[in-house]
């Protein structure tokens, strides 16, 4: 395991915090690490900051994320990586579509040329809105407490998706699948960063696979073309024990 000291912590929303640390590694947008909460668990986590100072932006879901989010500056964090295929770099106008903590992996892509479409459950859970240039961001909330009420598709209605050189998206599989269906017959470049259970992070355990591709290795980012041949995408997945269940 790599270990680093937490140098700073920022609470972004009631359930989301960012932990900053120094790690001398070349990490590209979309890559992730396996973060260890000793005694509790190990979970995949994108790098939300990839400069000299690195950071995770963690949402509190269960025991491991809970333990991690409670760590304070001065304490150690443990992780291994970086893993996974990064988003590909493009010049030009980009559209970043993030659902929930999916915004964490898109954060390094925020730039002057980037337009953000942020989906959140409710107003106080909106992530990184202020980091986009003014006028370059649109927000949807499930409960309508901010921006457009509804899901990402509602937010897309007002956007001319063809006008972007690349669309990057990250979020829950159902959201991404709906997005995929919305985009698949359009003339767009898009890369979707998927989320599935990951036990090993290094391509051996098969817990993250979609149609024989390992999210941890062949992904987590996939192009529209790759997704076209994946009938498990958006439909079925395996549970922690390996039982086949519906994604919904």
């Amino acid at each position: 395991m790599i270990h680093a000291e937490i140098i700073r912590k920022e609470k972004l929303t009631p359930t989301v915090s960012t932990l900053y640390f120094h790690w001398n590694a070349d990490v590209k947008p979309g890559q992730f690490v396996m973060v260890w909460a000793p005694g509790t668990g190990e979970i995949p986590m994108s790098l939300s900051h990839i400069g000299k100072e690195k950071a995770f932006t963690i949402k509190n879901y269960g025991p491991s994320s809970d333990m991690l989010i409670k760590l304070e500056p001065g304490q150690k964090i443990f992780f291994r990586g970086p893993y996974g295929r990064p988003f590909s770099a493009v010049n030009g106008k980009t559209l970043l579509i993030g659902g929930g903590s999916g915004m964490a992996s898109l954060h390094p892509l925020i730039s002057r040329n980037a337009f953000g479409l942020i989906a959140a459950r409710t107003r106080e859970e909106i992530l990184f809105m202020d980091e986009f240039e003014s006028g370059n961001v649109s927000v949807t909330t499930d409960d309508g407490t901010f921006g457009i009420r509804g899901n990402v598709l509602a937010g897309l209605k007002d956007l001319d998706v063809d006008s972007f050189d690349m669309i990057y998206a990250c979020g829950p599989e159902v959201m991404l699948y709906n997005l995929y269906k919305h985009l698949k017959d359009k003339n767009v470049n898009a890369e979707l960063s998927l989320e599935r259970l990951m036990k090993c992070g290094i391509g051996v355990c098969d817990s993250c696979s979609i149609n024989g591709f390992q999210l941890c290795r062949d992904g987590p980012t996939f192009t529209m073309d790759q997704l076209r041949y994946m009938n498990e995408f958006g439909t079925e997945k395996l549970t922690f024990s390996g039982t086949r269940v519906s994604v919904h």
Partner: protein
Amino acid sequence: MPKGSLISDIGSMQLESPLILASGILDENGYTMRRMLEEGAAAVVTKSIGSTERAGFTPPVVVDLGDNLLNAIGLSNPGIEHFKEEISIAKGIGKPVIGSIFGATAEEFAYLASRMQSYGADAVELNLSCPHVKGFGSEVGSDPSLVEDIVSEVKAKINVPVLAKLTPNVTDIVSIAKAAEKADALVLINTVKAMHIDIYARMPTLSNAYGGLSGPAIKPIGVRAVYDVYRETEMDIIGCGGISRFEDVLEYMMAGARAVEIGTALKTYGRAIFDNIKRDTIRFLESEGIENIEEIIGAAVKK
């Protein structure tokens, strides 16, 4: 030299090459197994399946040791009833799928084996050797009389070939091999009992503390086990442990293996490993003037 020169057989099962995907690596999901077969594996062994659903251990379940790996997945599996669909998906392409099973008693093994056969498995592999789950695996596999019972019981119930996978974590693997002599073939070896401690966290890295070591580190241990058992028995052997290059395949075969299983090397070299090793092995046979790979089986063993 035609590709046919690599054809192997294990009991009644015909393999287009001696290169099989080992149990537990990329073989939980039927689609993944199918992809491994499409991308060059001659057969796949499923991850080990038990009679009821088991979550297995909480991550960390692997420690990445470079080329080597420590794992304690903990026999995570959906239970045999839920595994039918994965087998059928995997079998879509027509190549052999070998169902791996684990249990605590001969009856449990026999039940699981007949289910696997009914799902269409082309052979059944008995995991007598997982080193890190209490009550299963190597605890079972280090008791010769239990091994003998399990193999007999399973052989009595199914027609497809039965492979017995043994643990190296015993004082005398030859005596266990002899106890399993009714099996159609032996698979040697499973992982070696091991541990990693994180000195900054001051605790074992695996949530289960104990795990099994795999990868090139254990190849000399596996080669020795194959050589020993080949010399002392007449059984067919499938070599396993640390294979990542064509030289490793040949070492195992010269020690007496008819075929091999490959696991951890998938991490290091990806799915292309099967085709790469196949190509290199054919080149070796050509340059050494070997017509048929059968010639080299046991070539290094003084019987």
